[in-house]
């Protein structure tokens, strides 16, 4: 599904150049759950941003379902992103001025889905996420775990092929964190491809494959046996 080759990303400030990603090669198969781990500053978030078309690398190629994405302009990237990808962030990033329902509805509006269909889809996902009685609340009225559920719901409502999660449990306590991880696993089992950046090896243990980054290089890649067996 994803084929990244010889990817290079350099951050330039006035005086120094920092190589955030250096010669990255990465393949993700459809239906996989991949964790990216590594110390702070290793480039894992940058890699995720590149995969989510939020950042442009200097060199390399990025194929998504056999389409080369690196040559696209901003508009094409936005179009591709809204049709194929969902995002979950560490700090939830819900819009404070919109209710739970409206937050989840937002991506559907950008995808130009008709009102009645939107309503149906949002209600469906709200039910699935078990937040029905919260749909009229504003984000500040929810607990962290509930907010992240809303954020996941928002990422999934468009039925994306790929979900990108950036430390989804980083701001949650362990029980809420586990809840979210279980949610992601369920999704994965239902067929959604997930790429997750995490610090926590506990979280990573939920995935099929763990990729370790250091200083912009992939230093190791290992299959998560337990999880894979489960899959079989």
């Amino acid at each position, binding site marked *: 599904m994803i084929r990244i080759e010889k990817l290079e990303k350099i951050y330039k400030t006035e005086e120094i150049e920092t190589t955030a990603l250096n010669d990255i090669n990465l393949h993700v198969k459809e239906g996989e759950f991949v964790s990216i781990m590594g110390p702070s500053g290793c480039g894992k978030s940058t890699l995720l941003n590149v995969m989510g078309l939020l950042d442009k690398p200097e060199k390399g190629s990025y194929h998504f379902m056999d389409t080369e994405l690196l040559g696209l302009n901003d508009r094409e990237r936005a179009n591709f*992103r809204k049709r194929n990808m969902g995002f979950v962030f560490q700090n939830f990033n819900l819009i404070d001025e919109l209710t739970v329902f409206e937050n989840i509805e937002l991506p559907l509006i950008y995808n130009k889905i008709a009102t009645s269909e939107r309503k149906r889809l949002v209600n469906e996902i709200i039910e699935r996420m078990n937040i029905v009685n919260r749909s009229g609340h504003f984000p500040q009225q929810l607990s962290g775990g509930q907010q992240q559920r809303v954020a996941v719901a928002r990422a999934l409502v468009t039925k994306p092929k790929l979900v990108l999660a950036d430390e989804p449990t980083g701001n949650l306590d362990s029980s809420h964190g586990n809840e979210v991880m279980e949610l992601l696993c369920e999704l994965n089992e239902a067929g959604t491809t997930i790429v997750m950046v995490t610090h926590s090896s506990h979280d990573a243990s939920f995935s099929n494959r763990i990729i370790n980054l250091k200083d912009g290089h992939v230093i190791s890649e290992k299959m998560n046996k337990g999880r894979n067996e489960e899959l079989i």
Partner: protein
Amino acid sequence: MFRMNLKIALRNLWKNKVYTAINIGGLSIALAAFIIVVLYVNYETSYDKNLPNYDRIYLVGRSMPDFKTDYTPAPLAKAIRQNFPEVELAGLTKNMGFEMPVSSDHGKIFSSNALQVESEVAKMFDIDPRDGLPANDAGLKAYLPRPLYKQLFPKESMKPPQMVALGPSNGAQAEKVSGTIDRDDEHSNLKFDLLALGNDISFGDQDYGANNFKTFIQVKKGTDVKALQEKIDRLYKKEVVKAGVSPTDRRIAGRSVIFLDPLKNLHLRPAAGSDANYKVVMALFGLGILVMVIACINFTNLTIAQATKRAKEVGVKKVLGAYRFNLTFQFLAEIFMQCVLALIMGLIVAEILLPVFNNLFSTPLSLWRSNTTLYWQLPLLLLLITIISGIYPALVLSGFKPAAVLKGNLQTSYKTLWLRNALLAGQFGIAIIFITGLFIVNSQLKYMRTEDTGFKPEQVISIKNMVLYSQPWSFRDVREKISKIPGVNYVTVASDIPDGSKAGTMNYKIDGKEASSDFLYVDFDYFETLGIRLKEGRLFSWKFNADTANSAILNESAVARYGVKDPVGKTIRGCDIDYKIVGVVKDFKSQGFQTAVEPTVYTIKNPCGNFKTKIMINVDEQRMALVLTTLKSQWSSINKLDGDDFRYDFLDELYGRLFKKQEQLQAVFFFAAVLTIFIAVLGLFAFSAFTTNSRIKEISIRKVLGATDFQVLKLLNTYFIWIILVANLVAWPLTYMLAKKWLQTFAYRIEMPILPFLVAAVVTSVLTIIIVSIQAQKAVRRNPAEVLKYE
């Protein structure tokens, strides 16, 4: 989508109520000021604009080497009409220039602006009597504006023509009013309260030597006006020679050049006159634009200062697939909404302030009455302010990089910092100029109101009178009757009253030295009535018979002008009479404070024109009311020839009108000072909020490292105090120069005060400390642990 954006916008505005109020409120106040200025500029620049041939009407004038005049000889209009086919219409007007009562059996009006107009000019100015233009006959026909006619003939049945009496009933002249005119001349260059309309108001006058008429022409479309001007000039010179005028007149005509002054310039910047009004209008317009632009920039700054709060929204929307264009449009629409609100509030504020403005500038401005210009200007203005104030924030906000803002790393740019600093300094600089200016204008006005003018107008009444009392014996009877009224101290009559009006000028000669001097014809008790002090010699007195024949009194300036020592007893010659100087009086400021006291010669005998008609009475203040009622009831027997109406003014009020311009200026400065300081404070508020927000991390780190709250407050304040200091240093010399220039227009003025500069500095500094501390307080109170958590 729109509904969702609207919700976000409204909830955001509501959440940040204070900012919203400041943002919209600031803009609406500036808009109110701007709307009033635009109304005023529209009004002042559109005199006669409703005339169908507005662009093709010109006033003919003559340019002499040292001055320009719009008075032209009588036959010129006809000559132009006969010689140049490109001139459609040409005609004369003449102002009769004196005040007289017009009465009927049912009412009375006082006409002070009777105008003779030829029918061709009437056509140009759309003056169309309700009862038809005069036919092709020779005479003049009199018309009255409808409201005035109504006062004379109130009943519907009293249709024109009707007979009226011109002048005082004793010796009135019967005149026929042929009709009425439905015309509001308030907004026209041609003003009249009595119109004498005729086909030829010069009555065949062929004199090219006397210039007593104004000549208006209307040209055909596409006429080369410059060429026409030259042709008329040649015609004029040819005609002058042909008419055989005196050599002096011929010399004058030869040196003068004809010019054509377009109608659109006549009100504000006539070629034969001053363009001061035009400058005032343009300066006000400039000020209005300046205030508006600064307010828009403030709006921008306030919005940008709030930007961090919207960053997440932008990031999320972009991640979810919004295009940058969508977001730019969304923010512009949001700002447009706020601008609409501001405009509505601005209109309300303008409506409230208009009466004050109208009162001050004697204008009839209104938002509602026939303001088609404003109706297309307002939407344009709305669009403009939306773009000026909105485009930058919309671009900045929609340009946020989602990858960065969603991580919470919003770096606000310091690139435009110098620009912001300069802007803030500029805003305060302007405010300082107005604050300082206001205090200086105040001081000068206070000086003018309290400083000794050399005479005492407070208890003097000036009576309107048309009877000529040029001979001392002719006034004796009136004087005696008035003097008998208890409470009357002195009575006199003179050719002028000290209300700023310019007296006549003549050449006088003392000891062989000839120089020009003002002259004033007075009667006994003139100096006593006005409380003017004697310096040496004596005042005019009944005891000296010669006083009515050839005695003169000079003022100090006249003595200085002629450079005589011991003037009393010397002879001064003027108007073919040798006067004996009997006394010298102290100078008094009859012309106000702007011009220096002119050398003046006072005599009772008036050999050279200038009739004595201005009666002045000095009254005991306690008995003023009584004296006035007595005068009113007895006036017809006192002033037998013009005793129908007792009309008077208090001399101090007439003199006070000389200050009107300064009072206007004071009011403009007051409003400008309030407005500019208000806007500057908003700017400071926005800027300090922005700075504090972007330095919040630094502040937290400092606090963690042990900085006290006071140290942080000081840190944030110091930065702004420097800017304000710079603003003061820049504004001071500028204000000093402008104020000095203004003060130099007064012959009698205050020394440049230092205090206003210090006051401006203190006011701006204190305001700065208050505003910045309010903002800084918020930052100081934040828990550093919370701020630094996500680092």
